[in-house]
């Protein structure tokens, strides 16, 4: 089976996010980047499928230098090779432009039996990219996947999807397919020392927009379907009463309020 697993570099969840001067994104130059959390689950699933059925696991990431580091970690986890979509022109892509660029790269790589993406990223976070990728590639797809069984001989997949309200559904779909992988589907492995050493010898190639044959108007900001007008922290039209003081004081005040005011205990 040939599997391509997508990895989006996002700011380390522990970072403090500050909105940039032009209010169009966050200040990202000093941040550490890691793989978006769901992508770790996707890569783990790819590695398990390979362990079961043999094949090739490539990881794919569009981004600046931070993406190369994230890809190195993926190679250390056990991916066979990595493709870095690196071009200043890719900057400012929305999900649509990202999906088109990723799709072109997958096509250039000869397509795949299975493409895995995260259910949603930790920054833009709507889970559009994987589904858009499927449409650009003309592949079948399934979202919010919590279980995968592949039958490489029959070229079919049986996957379990998680729906709202504690409902799960099982669907069958043919190769080639894109799956968006839900958090918690597995327990991602950590890279071993051996893995880290082995990663140094693995292939990590970089492709630009020109390599993909994508014209400037289709990538990055010009390729985006929307313009970012403003990023802001929403004002809380809320009723919340923030209780102040030391931890002990606040706790005591809170208990008082829960008893006398809210009358819930």
């Amino acid at each position, binding site marked *: 089976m040939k599997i391509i697993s997508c990895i989006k570099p996002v700011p380390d969840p522990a970072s403090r996010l500050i909105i940039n001067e032009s209010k169009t994104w966050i200040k990202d130059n000093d941040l550490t980047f890691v793989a978006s959390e769901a992508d770790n689950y996707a890569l783990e699933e790819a590695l398990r499928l390979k362990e079961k059925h043999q094949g090739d696991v490539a990881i794919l990431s569009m981004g600046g230098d931070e993406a190369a580091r994230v890809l190195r970690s993926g190679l250390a986890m056990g991916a066979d090779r990595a493709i870095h979509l690196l071009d200043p022109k890719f900057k400012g892509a929305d999900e649509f432009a990202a999906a088109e660029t990723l799709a072109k790269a997958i096509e250039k790589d000869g397509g795949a039996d299975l493409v895995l993406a995260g259910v949603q990223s930790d920054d*833009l976070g709507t889970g559009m990219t994987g589904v858009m990728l499927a449409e650009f590639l003309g592949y079948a797809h399934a979202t919010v996947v919590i279980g995968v069984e592949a039958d490489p001989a029959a070229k079919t997949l049986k996957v379990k999807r998680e729906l709202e309200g*504690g409902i799960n559904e*099982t669907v*069958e779909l043919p190769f080639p397919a894109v799956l968006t992988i839900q958090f918690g589907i597995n327990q991602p492995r950590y890279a071993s020392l051996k893995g880290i050493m082995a990663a140094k010898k693995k292939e990590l190639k970089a492709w630009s927009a020109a390599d993909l044959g994508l014209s400037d108007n289709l990538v990055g900001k010009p390729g985006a379907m929307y313009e970012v007008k403003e990023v802001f922290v929403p004002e809380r039209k809320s009723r919340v*009463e923030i*209780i102040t003081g030391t931890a002990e004081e*606040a706790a005591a005040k809170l*208990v008082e309020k829960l008893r006398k005011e809210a009358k819930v205990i």
Partner: protein
Amino acid sequence: MIFVITEHRDNKLKSITSEALVFAQRVGQDFGQPVTAVVLGANVSGLADELKTKKIDRVIVAEHPDLAEYSPDRYVEALKTILGNEKPFLVIVGHTTQGMDFAPRLSVSLRRPLIAGCVEYEKQGDRLILTRQVFNAKMNMKTGVRGESPYFATASPGAFQADELQSGGNAEIVSVAVQFSGPVRRKLVERVEAPRGMVDLSAAPIIVAGGRGLKEKDNFKIVFELAEALGASVGASRPVVDSEWLPREYQVGSSGQTVSPKLYFAVGISGAIQHLVGMQTSRCIVAINKDVEAPIFKVAHYGIVDDLFKVVPALTKIFKDLKVS
């Protein structure tokens, strides 16, 4: 024209449909655009009759045996036909596991913008500015759609209030014939309730729920201690369960249990929409979080902005003392 693609199961409209209709009614009023609800399915005339009573202009019904169960291939094909005949301005879909399963495909196949996870909008001149959430609801982003309509938007659950849906209309019901030529690649095998386990939080009067802010499994004991002092049940956010600190049955949220206790403590939980939809109707919500900007404070009644490792033991002590006295 504004279209709402309705979502239904077992011949009942989902509440997200009402929320999407509220979004549509508001945009419709501001932009002077009529609202059309679209129902895809088989034997769904009952749903059309129900929608007809809302203050909208039209209900389009496309019935076909292939639409009896949702499938992305059929939905995309049917909607391409319907939208192709109509040239809508805005097409609203629910930001659900179903909506987000087909809307991105439609957006790509028509090469039109999709703004997903919308919570608000603005009218700037003739332009529609859609506001969506980013960074797990910690920030919002205002976006200006590019190019010609139709524009696609998904409505974030809970962002538009279903009870604001205006009725009193007498919409025209229009049946549209759809024919399919493409394959149905993805087939439904079965749909089942996820195993429930032993933890039933639905009747718990008090819940102390912990999140990723607890950092590691062993720390969760402070949540259990507080719960015990209060005679409360324990709940968790999804990452707690995904990391196997607690079994799945403790999870509160869109893919876990929906709860509505009289008192809900959210300890080290940021308040992502998928968590909020599972607990926001609780009578009294207390949030303990060191980040004042955490979205959980949007729904909380009382908040303590401090280190949970200090606050939670302090609370436990007070409740223990209260019990003794």
